[in-house]
């Protein structure tokens, strides 16, 4: 289980090595704040959808499984969206349409199909948590680089009270050298590609090591 959890961060990271859910990753990783908010929303939906689908897995026949998954996921996303809208309006505004688009995030449907429909409730919940955290981790990595390059600062606000800054750092001396490109979609692709290459390198190295160990 722990191994699974660790693997989901680097070897099987849903974003960097399976290339799932890229649409929202590229769009929402403009600021650290958005990344954390989006990551948590996806994690919550993932855990609950995995748990519910795992509970229903013996009842659902093969023919209707996809409609059932969609109904479950869509209602969870709607509920999360309404809660965010009511209690964290500033986060709701900055996530915009991408919050509703969590419904079609392929990580969630993918985990429902590949894991929750075959495993027991507890490990499905753990899998949802692991995958959600790995997605958040990927988003945070990209967003920190993008926000730093574009603004020369990284700031995290309290989502329930946008006036309050929880933590942040800013380099005033870097302000004249910021790159607005990083905040645009081009920047998203560039930063994402660099990280994806780095993670592929880590993965290949691990594979090579295993091979050599096998030879000896």
């Amino acid at each position, binding site marked *: 289980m722990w191994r699974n959890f660790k693997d989901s961060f680097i070897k099987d990271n849903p974003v960097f090595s399976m290339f799932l859910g890229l649409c929202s990753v590229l769009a929402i990783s403009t600021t650290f704040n958005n990344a954390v908010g989006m990551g948590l929303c996806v994690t919550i939906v993932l855990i609950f959808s995995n748990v519910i689908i795992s509970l229903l897995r013996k009842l659902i026949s093969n023919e*209707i499984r996809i409609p059932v998954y969609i109904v479950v996921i869509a*209602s969870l996303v709607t509920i999360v969206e309404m809660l965010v809208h009511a209690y964290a*309006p500033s986060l709701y505004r900055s996530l915009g349409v991408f919050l509703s688009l969590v419904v079609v995030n392929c990580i969630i449907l993918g985990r429902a199909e590949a894991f929750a429909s075959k495993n027991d409730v507890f490990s499905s919940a753990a899998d949802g948590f692991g995958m959600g955290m790995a997605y958040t981790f990927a988003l945070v990595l990209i967003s920190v680089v993008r926000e730093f390059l574009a603004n020369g600062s990284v700031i995290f606000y309290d989502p329930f009270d946008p006036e309050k800054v929880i933590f942040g750092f800013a380099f005033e001396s870097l302000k004249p050298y910021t790159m607005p490109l990083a905040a645009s979609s081009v920047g998203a692709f560039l930063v994402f590609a660099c990280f994806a290459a780095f993670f592929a390198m880590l993965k290949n190295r691990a594979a090579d090591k295993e091979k050599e160990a096998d030879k000896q």
Partner: protein
Amino acid sequence: MKKAMLSVLLLALVAALAGAAITYVNGITEPVIEENVANEERENLLKMFPDGEFIELDGYTMNDCILSVYEAKDRGYVVKAAAYGYNTSTPIIVLIGFDKDGKTIGISALQQQETSGYGARCFEKIFMEDTYVNKTADDKIDTLSGATRTSSAMQKIMEAAFEAVSEVR
């Protein structure tokens, strides 16, 4: 046949439960959301006229631009207006304050996602204060080169706002 019926029943049951859950959460969150929206609108209006008392007005010609017109008691008017600039998916929404004679006294952008470095320059504080504040309906409103579509949208908003204010005055 029996299996198909069971499947249909199960799907219907899941859908019904999901619907019930959504309705329940909606019942809790809807009043909070409405209150948030009303508070936010009031806070924006207060930026134009601190300590003002606001009444929503009608009696202006409805068009695409004007979202709402408020009267700040004895002090002037606030117009909320929207138009599309270069970004055709997110409209520009601005709040414009007028004094009793129909002269603009303030403007603030509530929402805009124009291209940064180009159209977004229209919403820089210095440009906005120079271009849109202290104007009457007869003044010409400047545009910004390199941001033609954004500033045309702003001109459209200003024209519509002047018209609406002259109608309610």
